[in-house]
């Protein structure tokens, strides 16, 4: 049994320790908001936060998450940063197919949690590992800047 803290809840899972966190979330815990894209940490669709830092859950063994705080897209509305990012995503109507957007939002929230006013270069550095085949990158950039501004205004 491996004990985890997922979105503030303690859970225990029976999966083998080398099972990627992604599949524990999706198949064992039934939390399908985190997406499978590549299985090799190349596309970022599976991004979650581990103790606040963005990680690719498809290559993170569940054993590495034991005793740490796992945060997923399902809990984003509960954090002020996540809420601001989601609101900006809605305002800019960012998603098209939407499949990569959980990962994009997790990446953007992790960036804004540590960098209140990211530059274009900061956005590139934080987000270039998260692919979007619909090409929503310009809207993602605009939404991140918008979320940063709305947080600085305390709205």
């Amino acid at each position, binding site marked *: 049994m491996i004990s985890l803290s997922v979105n503030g809840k303690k859970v225990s899972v029976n*999966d*083998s320790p080398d*099972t*990627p966190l992604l*599949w524990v979330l*999706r*198949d*064992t815990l*039934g*939390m*399908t*908001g*985190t*997406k*499978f*894209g*590549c*299985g*090799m940490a*190349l*596309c970022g*669709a599976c991004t979650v936060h581990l103790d606040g830092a963005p990680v690719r859950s498809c290559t993170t063994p569940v054993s590495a998450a034991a005793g740490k705080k796992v945060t*997923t*897209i*399902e809990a*984003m*509305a509960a954090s002020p940063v996540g809420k601001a990012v*989601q609101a900006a*995503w*809605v305002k800019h*109507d*960012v*998603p*098209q*197919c*939407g*499949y*990569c*957007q*959980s990962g994009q*939002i997790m990446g953007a929230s992790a960036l804004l949690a540590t960098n209140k006013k990211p530059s274009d270069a900061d*956005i*590139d550095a934080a*987000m*270039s*590992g*998260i*692919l*979007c*085949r*619909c*090409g*929503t*990158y*310009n*809207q*993602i*950039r605009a939404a991140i800047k918008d979320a940063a501004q709305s947080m600085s205004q305390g709205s």
Partner: protein
Amino acid sequence: MSAIFNATRRDFLKTSALAGGGLLIGFTLPGASRLAEAASAFSPNAYIRIGSDNQITVICGLSEMGQGVHTAIPMLVAEELDADWSKIKMMQAPADPAFNNPIFGMQATGGSTSVRGHWEPMRKAGATARAMLVAAAAAQWKADPADCRTEKAMVLHKSGKKLTYGQLAAAAAKQAVPTEVKLKSAKDFKILGTPAKRLDTPAKVNGKAKFGLDVRLPGMLTAVMARPPVPGGKVVSVDDSKAKAIPGVKQVVQIPGGVAVLAQGYWAAKQGRDALQIKWDDGANAALSSEGVSKMLAEGAAKGGAVGRNVGDAGAPVAKKVEAVYEAPFLAHACMEPMNATVWVKPDEIEVWAGTQSQGPSQGILGQVGGVAPGKVKVNTMYLGGGFGRRFAPDFTIDATLLSKISGKPVKLVYTREDDMKAYFYRPASVTRFVGGLDASGKAVSFSACIASPSIMEASGFMKLPADGVDEMAVEGIRDCPYDFPNLRVEYARREPGVQVWFWRSVGHSQNIFFIESFVDEMAAAAGKDPVEFRLALLGKQPRYKGALELAAQKAGWGKPLPAGVHRGIAVAQSFGSYVAEVAEVSVGKDGKVKVHRVVSAVDCGVTVNPEIIRRQIESAIVYGLSAALYGKITFKDGRVEQSNFHDYPVLRIDEMPKVEVHIVASTEPAGGIGEPGLPPLAPAVTNAIFAATGKRVRALPINTETLKQS
């Protein structure tokens, strides 16, 4: 490709032909019985449900893959219904003939047909419901319907009386269905033409949107398959002892498509699949190589083929001859959501959960695979994590159906990224040979092209090569070229290297517009003329091409100075009923690296349904096209696909994203498509800019930066 796919082609054809006879004209269909719910007080047709609580729901049979159809279709209905847009809900329809795509004659989403096909039927559906609501109100008030008007889901009488659609729903349901309704003229549109927000956004920012891969059923097994590493390969023997030893693995099943491991959850299934020891017979394609494919296609393009169009004498002597050979590779779609499907074969019914673009054909094919009538195949369309044509294919639903049938369990078949990349259904590779002729003044007087490529029509399973032997999709964009060449000849040389080809965003235009718009640029350079002026002189009979070209050139500041090192290229194309011109601003580094700084696009897609969705789709197609132009190629060696994941099949990232401007040509022409037409002009706009920057002509994609290095 797989035996089962071939076996079901006939049925696919039969199903679509049958459906093709019944173009959807009537809209007063009773609708699918599954849609009848107690809550709906008024369902005048299959597409609208109005509850007594005043909730209006639009039911849409088209698949949402990012293109915004789940917003555009409700807009069409809501406009004529005079609904309150802020309260409209969208519901995905089941597979039912009521939802046939009028252009295809079957329920399917693709070919940028959704708005084009539904522009009138959906507005009529809304207008019909509105007329019945007005009739119900007039009856209640004992008033003349002519004294009633509608606004924001209410009927208002000139006396000031008003009733909501919800209050009228039950009475409206009893009204006679009008046989004719008057549609609004464009000047009265309140919803159409506005940048209405997408209805699917809220569910796509919180993880709640359900894609095919998110389906979970009680007792479900997850399957991961080993497929032949060479197209057409067969299993010789399987040792599954190691696979079966993995905890969670339940069953190993061999089907025509390969060997599947069924397990509890993806991870066990994937580990099981990786532990299979299979001996393969590679078959006839064991020596397939990209060099061989290129050679085969180049031979075809040089030799000539079936004549698709012949005007005047393209072979007559000219003052100056321009010749070039162009090539494009096989391409994978690389949707962000790998292919998958969940199927449950029950004793007398098959239930499917999938992100599919082809519900109608799926019913016919899967019914045959599972042994039930097409009407007994229930299709639950999930959100598609990208489609781009790939999800029109039946490979993943067929195999999931077989696995459920054999195991007796609901089965979710999942392609790993590597499986998805190597599963064929590629955009065809193509080689085209051009000869152009200029007269002494530099005027273009002749043009000939021979296009060599595999046939998508034959590969599709539901189309056949026409009697003239010219695959329409292999030559589209070149055969219908808009330029006023007095002598013109277009030929098609079909060559089949043995790879399953398929529809890929913008289909034949995806390579052919790169070819022709680059070659026309070569002709302009040979004539010593400006690329825009040269094209405009040949577009005298084509006002919409001309309009798009001029607007893009003007908005991009064509001819005006750019920052040092930045150069412009331009291209124009019509596809799927829409005209798009793009100007790319590009610089080429000393290392040959290509940087696209900005793309300025002008689009004439006829009447505007939603300008913001139009802009986003053009931008989306630019990104998809730029990924392909810079990086995209599927290559073969020893019969095997050499690419596997995003490290060797790179796609554009946010740090490479150009600025994009999209300008919409104001138009009252019929609606054109919008999901695909932004793609074709992108590659030639970029490579023409590379020519402007370096004097080097890029004649093959992806762009080979080695050849652009400055020594």
